[in-house]
């Protein structure tokens, strides 16, 4: 019963988040929501540790400024009591050059009274940086990484 409510609440949140409906998405979250996206914040200053449900509106606004369309496809969901894990395939169309970038995102949610209380997220950040830059970075670093592993 609780699991069904949490699942419905999460799907409502994701639909609203990617539809740009900040009010509905925020209503799915506890006021004291604690969110961490593990990513290099020197590169992605809007990610990292955020506290409070104002984060939801800010995150939607930031993404809308950068991307003309944002879509998610839920690839995996595991529900266990008040916790839900998802893997999502995200497609984001950049405003500046109209290129579409893709990423798989791991998201872990903890619920309290049917609302999202805790959110943890990360993704294949090296690949995402390459897509945003529009160039392959592996040539620059692959030899160094392989040498370091062997040294």
């Amino acid at each position, binding site marked *: 019963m609780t699991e069904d409510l949490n699942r419905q609440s999460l799907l409502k949140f994701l639909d609203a988040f990617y539809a740009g409906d900040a009010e509905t998405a925020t209503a799915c979250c506890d006021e004291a929501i604690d969110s961490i*996206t*593990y*990513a*290099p914040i*020197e*590169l*992605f*200053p*809007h*990610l990292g540790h955020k506290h409070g449900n104002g984060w939801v509106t800010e*995150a939607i606004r*930031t*993404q809308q400024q*950068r991307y003309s369309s944002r879509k998610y496809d839920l*690839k*995996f969901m*595991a*529900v*266990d009591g008040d*916790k*839900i*894990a998802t*893997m999502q395939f*995200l497609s*984001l169309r*950049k405003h500046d050059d109209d290129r579409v970038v893709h*990423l*798989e*995102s*791991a998201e*872990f949610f*903890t619920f309290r009274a049917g609302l999202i209380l805790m959110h*943890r997220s*990360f*993704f*294949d*950040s*090296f*690949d*995402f*940086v390459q897509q*945003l*830059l529009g160039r392959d*970075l*592996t040539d620059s*670093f*692959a030899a*160094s*990484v*392989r040498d*370091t*592993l*062997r*040294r």
Partner: protein
Amino acid sequence: MTEHSLWRFSRALHRAINERHYADLSGLIDDDVDWTVYGPIDMFPFLGARRGKAAVLEVIRQIAENVRIHRFDRESVMLAEDSAASMMRYSLTALDSNKPVSLRLAHFAKFRAGRLTSIRVLIDTFDLVEQTLGRAIHLPKMVAV
């Protein structure tokens, strides 16, 4: 109460990597397993996609030849009937260089009849590359996800 398939698989995987004992793990992997660890395969050839038990056991041998697990903490775990997901923090050593590496990963696994049929693993790969290089990669400020 029957133990969840994740726990048996997790113990066998860690034993395979640290002790190079593959027999237990082999019995817990479906013949047609679908395996993907997302990341830069030009830098870490043991990342990427594999299909079938033989290919997966081979890539686990490659991982065992490259790293040793010192410690892992399961920060979050979700157990469903035939699936499981965890967020984990690993402390590893790159064997050839004796270099310590700390990484956070998420895995999403599906099981059938106690055997792994599918797994997807996500890693904060930018952090992994920087740790391996031993220095920060300087790039311009980016847009947020």
